[in-house]
């Protein structure tokens, strides 16, 4: 019988199969991308409209990845994402108008800029936290439901939030609400990077694996000591937090928000991007968010027709690749040393034991 104490240390270190420093390479790539876009903006190759689209892409990426956390990784079918987005948007917009805009700043110009930036960050976080709080509040009772029932409950939640906002005169009701423009490309880009990084870190931890185990087999997960309710609520709350965050960015980007913007159709849009990219793939979510945002903009001239084209694209994807463009693969898989699938060939380090 095998000796338990002799598991090769080499083998443990190599167990994830990723080359060292891959994360840093990716982060440097992200930095270069940012600098490249800034450079193009300065040189005039990208006009404000392009920048607006790029901001929207960043916001959509956060939305899609956060919904993937709930739907793709934890396997809980939520249709209320636009509701959380609305909460983040309205809370942050309200705070900006009633707190930041009431303050008078004095002192050096750089200090004022810094203070304003800090306050804006706080406002965004406030929006995200309120959305997350609502996530806990709603998640605790509804996540006991499964499948279709959960979908309907979360759909109802989104509608309740929308109707509530229509009837809230403090934030403009159905007329909508004007918001100062505070989101620029840097805000959208870096908050997106941080949000995605945090969610990737979460997924690749033991807590993330606990969420994935809920999706895979709830009964087995419970039997392995996983508090499934806790992890469902955790994923739901995290998803709501980042939806709130992107809602806050969204409000301060488009300067005007109204309850209609955060209707059922927006939840569906986000869901479509998740499914298109692949349930359980962060890379897929990012790709789909970029792809669909760009396609929707390109088809803008076609007005109504774009919805039809969009639907056709969706049907085609579902026919050809029902698991989504990327399934549950990640871009980092490309860098893994392949070991799967050839049982005849013993792994090299195996012999070293």
């Amino acid at each position: 019988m095998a000796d338990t104490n002799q598991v090769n240390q080499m083998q443990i270190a190599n167990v994830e199969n990723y080359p060292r420093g891959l994360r840093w390479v990716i982060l440097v790539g992200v930095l270069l991308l940012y600098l490249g876009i800034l450079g193009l903006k300065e040189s005039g190759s990208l006009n404000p409209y392009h920048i607006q689209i790029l901001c929207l892409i960043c916001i959509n990426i956060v939305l899609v990845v956060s919904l993937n956390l709930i739907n793709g990784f934890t396997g809980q079918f939520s249709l209320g994402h636009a509701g959380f987005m609305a909460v983040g948007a309205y809370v942050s917009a309200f705070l900006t108008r009633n707190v930041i805009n009431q303050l008078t700043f004095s002192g050096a110009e750089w200090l004022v800029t810094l203070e304003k930036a800090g306050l804006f960050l706080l406002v965004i976080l406030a929006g995200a936290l309120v959305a997350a709080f609502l996530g806990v509040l709603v998640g605790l009772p509804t996540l006991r439901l499964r499948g279709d029932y959960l979908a309907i409950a979360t759909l109802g939640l989104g509608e309740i939030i929308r109707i509530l906002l229509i009837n809230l005169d403090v934030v403009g009701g159905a007329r909508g609400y004007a918001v100062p423009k505070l989101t620029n490309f840097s805000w959208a880009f870096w908050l997106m990077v941080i949000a995605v990084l945090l969610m990737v870190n979460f997924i690749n931890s033991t807590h993330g694996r606990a969420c994935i185990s809920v999706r895979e087999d709830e009964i087995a997960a419970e039997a392995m000591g996983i508090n499934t309710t806790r992890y469902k609520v955790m994923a739901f709350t995290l998803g709501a937090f980042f939806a709130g965050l992107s809602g806050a960015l969204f409000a301060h980007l488009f300067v005007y928000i109204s309850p209609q913007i955060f209707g059922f159709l927006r939840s569906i849009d986000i869901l479509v991007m998740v499914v298109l990219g692949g349930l359980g793939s962060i890379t897929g979510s990012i790709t789909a968010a970029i792809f669909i945002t760009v396609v929707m903009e390109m088809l803008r001239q076609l007005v109504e027709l774009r919805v039809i084209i969009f639907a056709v694209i969706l049907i085609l994807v579902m026919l050809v690749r029902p698991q989504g463009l990327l399934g549950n693969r990640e871009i980092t898989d490309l860098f893994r040393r392949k070991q799967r699938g050839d049982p005849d060939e013993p792994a090299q380090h195996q012999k070293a034991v």
Partner: protein
Amino acid sequence: MSLLSIKKLSKSFGGLIAVNNLSLDIQPGELVGLIGPNGAGKTTVFNILTGVYPPSSGEIWFQEHSLVGLKPYQITQKGIARTFQNIRLFDNLTVLDNVRIALHSHSAYRVTSSFIRSASFKKGENSMRRKAMEILKIFKLDDKYDEIARNLPYGEQRRLEISRALAAQPRLLLLDEPAAGMNPQETQELMELIRWVRNAFSLTVLLIEHDMSLVMGVCERIYVLDYGMLIAQGSPQEIKSHPRVIEAYLGEEVATVAEDQQH
């Protein structure tokens, strides 16, 4: 002091009494079998023990704690782990992840550490990885750690399920038909493995087996269920010649013949 003690446990589904007034005691370190014909209520007993169903009446004591009313994950955290009759692996995950998920409730780091990949995250992940590989090595699955569980051959899936249960670090291991679908040689190996694991991890094992001859080889004590009722208990030798067991398995007539032959 017994490790697990079930007192007058009953469970009915509507009019069907699946488990009827069952009492049993398991001492630490024992390897106990629970056998009975199809539909005798063996798996129901497991499901009640692990909190999947609440009992209709009766008590369950594990290390002086009552298990009645606890959720499955709480019972697992108290030290009871199980395998399933029809394998329930996390099919789309790797072998390693299957085991690491079972290690989760013993992991040392918090959610906040995982966001920022702090030192405690790295330490925790490394130790989980090491423990998981150690367990996989025992079950000769370490060279397949990166394989998707679904792609493993049947026998290896069974072994993976046991290693996953062991990763939950139980005091009591419940095995639900671990040898189902295995050929005689695989079964033989598995039984030896179970016996070895029991000694190496100083575990207590309660196993359900449908097939009597297999249990006879490995179990030190056997409980026999039929129609939810305990009809016999004792050593394999006693069980083998127990008339009510023969009756339950082979029918009344055979039992009478067997009894006649003994006289």
